[in-house]
């Protein structure tokens, strides 16, 4: 035989939530009309700063999923100082990330020694076909504009040794 209080308390919780929703508004947002801003560190998509990339292959080799494809060739660049020898630089031909395979682990961003890869909180890049998720360096470069500044750290943090 059920006791009344427990059953009534449950009714009270739902009624309370209903009145809160009516007076204070819902906890959800109407997505296409209003958007929540993801946190600064959010790992939405990997953006590429092409100028910094030396096609050193470190990211492609440390990727657990083998989803980064890099091709490059060497060419001569004008010397830095006048009268110097022409430099040999690596020119990036192809930098593709297959987001259908990517696990968003961030290892590539971390290992990049030349600050060419960044996380952007951008998340609206779904595609109807899985093959379309392979993005080339032009697309990755566009996302560079959405990369935020790194956030301030909490008190007591030691910034030493971090890039």
């Amino acid at each position: 035989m059920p006791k009344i209080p427990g059953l009534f308390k449950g009714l009270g919780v739902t009624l309370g939530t209903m009145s809160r929703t009516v007076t204070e508004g819902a906890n959800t947002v109407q997505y296409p009309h209003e958007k929540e801003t993801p946190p600064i560190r959010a790992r939405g998509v990997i953006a590429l700063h092409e100028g910094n990339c030396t096609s050193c292959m470190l990211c492609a080799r440390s990727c657990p999923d083998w989803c980064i494809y890099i091709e490059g060739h060497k060419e001569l660049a004008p010397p830095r100082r006048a009268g110097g020898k022409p430099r040999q630089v690596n020119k990036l031909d192809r930098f593709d990330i297959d987001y259908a395979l990517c696990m968003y682990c961030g290892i590539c961003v971390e290992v990049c020694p030349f600050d060419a890869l960044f996380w952007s909180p951008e998340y609206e890049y779904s595609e109807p076909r899985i093959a379309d998720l392979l993005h080339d360096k032009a697309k990755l470069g566009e996302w560079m504009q959405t990369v935020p500044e790194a956030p301030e750290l909490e008190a007591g943090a030691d910034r030493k040794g971090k890039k």
Partner: protein
Amino acid sequence: MTMLTDRQQLSYIAAQAADARVNLELETEGMTLNIGPQHPATHGTLRIIARLDGEQVVWAEPSCGYMHRGYEKLTEVRTFPQVTALVNRIDWLGSFANEVPFILAAEKLMGIEAPARAQHIRTILFELSRIANVSLFLGDLGVQLGAITPVFMAFRDREYVLNLIEGATGGRFHPNFDRIGGLKDDLPAGWIDETRNVMKKLRRFCDEIEDLLFGNEIFQSRTRGIGVIPRDVAMQYGLSGANLRASGVDWDLRRDQSLPMAWNKADWKVWTHNDGDSFARCWVRLQEVRESTKIVDQLIETIPAGPVMTKVPRIIKVPEGEAWVATENPLGEMGYYVVSKGDLGPFRVKIRSASFNNMSITPWLLKGVYVPDIITILASLYFILGDIDR
């Protein structure tokens, strides 16, 4: 008369036999019910083959493997940092907690320890992932038992915790934030204040769930006395976490082993229950969420200053040896037996996941219960499919 075809003849004979049997005795025929692989109560693709007599289960057995991803094999072709990204997909609701024991095992083999600040933040994030995980359990419990509202409350309040995890680590579900020797980064500014607020919300959520669900007499009549696991059986099957504590075994790896983590710096309590039934398991989890909010509340006030990363080589090679590290994860004891041969990657990783052991008791437990009780028991044992199949 035309000749009957073989098929007709066979069906005629079968019909005769069936009639004869009904006439002989009013025996009911059993029925095999496949619960899953696609079923709302199986959190993924678990399949339970149940032999029913009416609504009563004669025997039932889970059939796993619909989501087996072979993580133990995959770890063998990956380096240690890469494995971290892999293992936080085992229990995808409390993923940060999956990284910690693996990282601790690697650190143990290398003979290093994370700095105090990193240990502290690790513990906070660990408890946050427990809250995120178990609060969803509390909501999901309602759905399994037919109440639809709790799950929305759980999703609502879990969202705050996920935002915290994402704010600190960048990943909502798969943080991949733990590194051998410390953490990837320090906490962003303002994070601690926000955590304080969220913990208040989570405690209110616990109260709401207690009023809405645990106090409800219907809920109690559905869960009390259902799926009782005695103490000895629980230990034999290697149950862990709340399932073990609900059977009266006072065992919590956070308290009972010394790990380089900060649990011993907070004041909290290990809850146990003596009944061993579904209600006890759910109740213990509810209390654990409350304890976790307390732990987080205390730890965020006392984070020591300093670096979050100790000095480790860029290319991590783990010296030869074997190490076993287990932690008290949201689902129970999660352990990694890591064998290293001094290479870039582990030689063999045995992943001892909590749900695998927790579910291995189900053939024993599901005998003689009713169909709705299967759902109750599965819900109260609380498995995550990735944690069974790995």
